[in-house]
């Protein structure tokens, strides 16, 4: 897989280099971790790219490279994009963090935007969405909807973003259903339909009747559908799997951000920034809730989403303990962004341990 993707990268990069003309247009590059047809994470980033094209028409040219492995291969792809005259490059996966910083050093005049990371430079911005706000909402739904009180969670890599999601979902499922248990499976991949499907199957075989996922394909949905379990759209609406097993979803809406940032490059106002928006700003949306969810649960979930959007409620509000029982947040205290950004621990009640 790595080898093949690397070659894809090399071949396409050569193609990109050949297209380096027309300097009057603003050239926007996107580096994707999965295929644009994954119907999840990468699909939504590509929708953002299309929104940029729709907004600026002839004034922009967008290029993208899909299924780029995280690590050294991505550095080559970014270098090729920069060499081919890209003015701004969006690198859309956590694992592109160090490669983005490295390439940005070599091309001080090219602007870089790295999604979900925390390393910045004068020409590198970071942006991410507060997915955990959405997880709090669907965690509430999951807690209400489970009959076996066992929720299966397919996680990708043990990075703060994923751990935050598990904690947010667990805290809110537990709040509405004190008997709920989470079973977390680490797939160590963002995109591998067969493996994600197997993970869903393993969880369902062991009694989980609601599946949450933090991987990008719709495979767990297909398995849940066959097995009669419920699931949530991840990153994208995944509406094709509604109303059953998909009962709601977390949607990442990158379009407004991409349009704004490309606009800033065009009028010369681009600066290195750190953006972290949630439900309130519209970067995270909750997909339509299916009729399978009782009206009172829908209302409860909606109220939670509204209170998060208005800023009245923060999903990580004390009293909360860490897994080892030590106090993390006192009554009424809320977690600051620094702690959230580097979260590497489970909250009290979750079983298993966070892999290193």
């Amino acid at each position, binding site marked *: 897989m790595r080898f093949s993707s690397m070659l894809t990268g090399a071949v396409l990069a050569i193609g990109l280099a050949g297209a380096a003309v027309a300097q009057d247009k603003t050239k926007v590059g996107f580096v994707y971790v999965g295929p644009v047809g994954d119907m999840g994470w990468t699909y939504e980033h590509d929708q953002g790219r299309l929104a940029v094209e729709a907004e600026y028409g002839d004034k922009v040219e967008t290029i993208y490279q899909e299924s780029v492995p995280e690590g050294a291969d991505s550095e080559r792809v970014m270098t090729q994009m920069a060499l081919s005259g890209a003015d701004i490059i969006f690198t859309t996966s956590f694992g592109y963090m160090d490669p983005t910083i490295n390439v940005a050093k070599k091309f001080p005049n090219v602007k870089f935007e790295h999604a979900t990371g925390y390393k910045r430079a004068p020409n590198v911005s970071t942006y991410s969405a507060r997915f955990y706000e959405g997880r709090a909402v669907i965690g509430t739904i999951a807690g209400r909807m489970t009959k076996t009180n066992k929720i299966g969670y397919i996680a990708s890599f043990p990075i703060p973003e994923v751990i935050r999601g598990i904690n947010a979902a667990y805290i809110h499922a537990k709040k509405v259903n004190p008997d709920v248990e989470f*079973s977390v499976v680490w797939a160590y991949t963002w995109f591998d339909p067969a493996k994600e499907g197997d993970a869903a199957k393993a969880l369902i075989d062991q009694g989980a009747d609601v599946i949450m996922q933090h991987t990008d394909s719709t495979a767990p949905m297909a398995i849940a559908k066959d097995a009669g379990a419920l699931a949530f759209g991840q990153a994208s609406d995944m509406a094709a799997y509604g109303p059953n097993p998909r009962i709601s979803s977390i949607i990442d809406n990158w379009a407004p951000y991409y349009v704004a940032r490309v606009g800033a490059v065009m009028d010369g106002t681009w600066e290195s920034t750190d953006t972290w928006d949630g439900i309130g700003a519209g970067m995270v949306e909750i997909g339509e809730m299916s009729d399978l969810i009782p009206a009172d649960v829908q209302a409860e979930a909606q109220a939670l989403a509204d209170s998060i959007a208005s800023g009245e409620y923060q999903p990580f509000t004390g009293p909360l303990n860490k897994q080892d029982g030590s106090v993390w947040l006192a009554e009424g205290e809320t977690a600051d962004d620094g702690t959230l950004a580097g979260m590497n621990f489970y909250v009290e009640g979750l079983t298993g341990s966070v892999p290193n």
Partner: protein
Amino acid sequence: MDLSAINPVILIASLMVAATPILLAAIGELVVEKSGVLNLGVEGMMITGAICGFAVAVETGNPWLGFLGAALGGAVLSLLFGFLTQYLLSNQVATGLALTLFGLGLSALLGQGYVGVTPPEIDAIGFGPLADIPVIGPILFEHDLMVYVSLALIAGVWAFLKYSRAGLILRAVGESHDAAHALGYKVVYVRMAAIAFGGACAGLGGAYLSLIRVPQWTEGMTAGAGWIALAIVVFASWRPVGVLLGAYLFGGVTVLQLNLQAAGVAVPVEYLSMSPYLITILVLVIMSSGGGRASLNAPAALGKSFHASN
């Protein structure tokens, strides 16, 4: 930790399902390599088979026609490889890699209208009372047809290579194409037939993913299964039984580690995740240290181009 949550019977049944795609692709590639051709395009043929099978199954409503379409799609793509390497004498490694890239792109194009579509359902074969036998029933008698087809293919290929005259010719071509040519065998025809068979098997493996194991179409859904199939052929030291063992071992460890995680076993997840690869490497080392016999079992003409003028 609650190991009782893992039902070994369900585990074995699901490892057979998890192993079937790589098993199909690997047994096809074994025949190709036995004829002296190294086709690294398994991944590309698998994914093409996955979408061809999916599209045909959805359009006709008949999953078995889908599998037929998948085999055809894989075979047609592999014949492209065959034409380039056998008639135009292009480099097999480079052409195989190109075939993978081509297959990934082609399948993405073909699959555009099929994202989110649910394929027609495939039921397990009804073995009636046999399926009710405890333990053995769910393991042996509750699968879909393709699991049995894959097992039959292993047996068939084994018997073909070991006992049939055609199998002997195929092996002769793979060991020394010059000698086979001198005896009057059509080296290129034999190899083209082997390549087409390999393509058809890879196509079936891909369709098993898209029609049964995951039931959906997603771009790039094979996610490296073709490369694992290639490794398993080496792992098996070009023996059909070895392919069966290798595929089931790999599928088994993959499924087992996911189940262990779901059961909350307190083994560090990193070790569980790397275990399929680790065990594969370990077995490879053990096997190749056994008097060097396994390492010598590779077809002698593997990867070499043949032209009658040589």
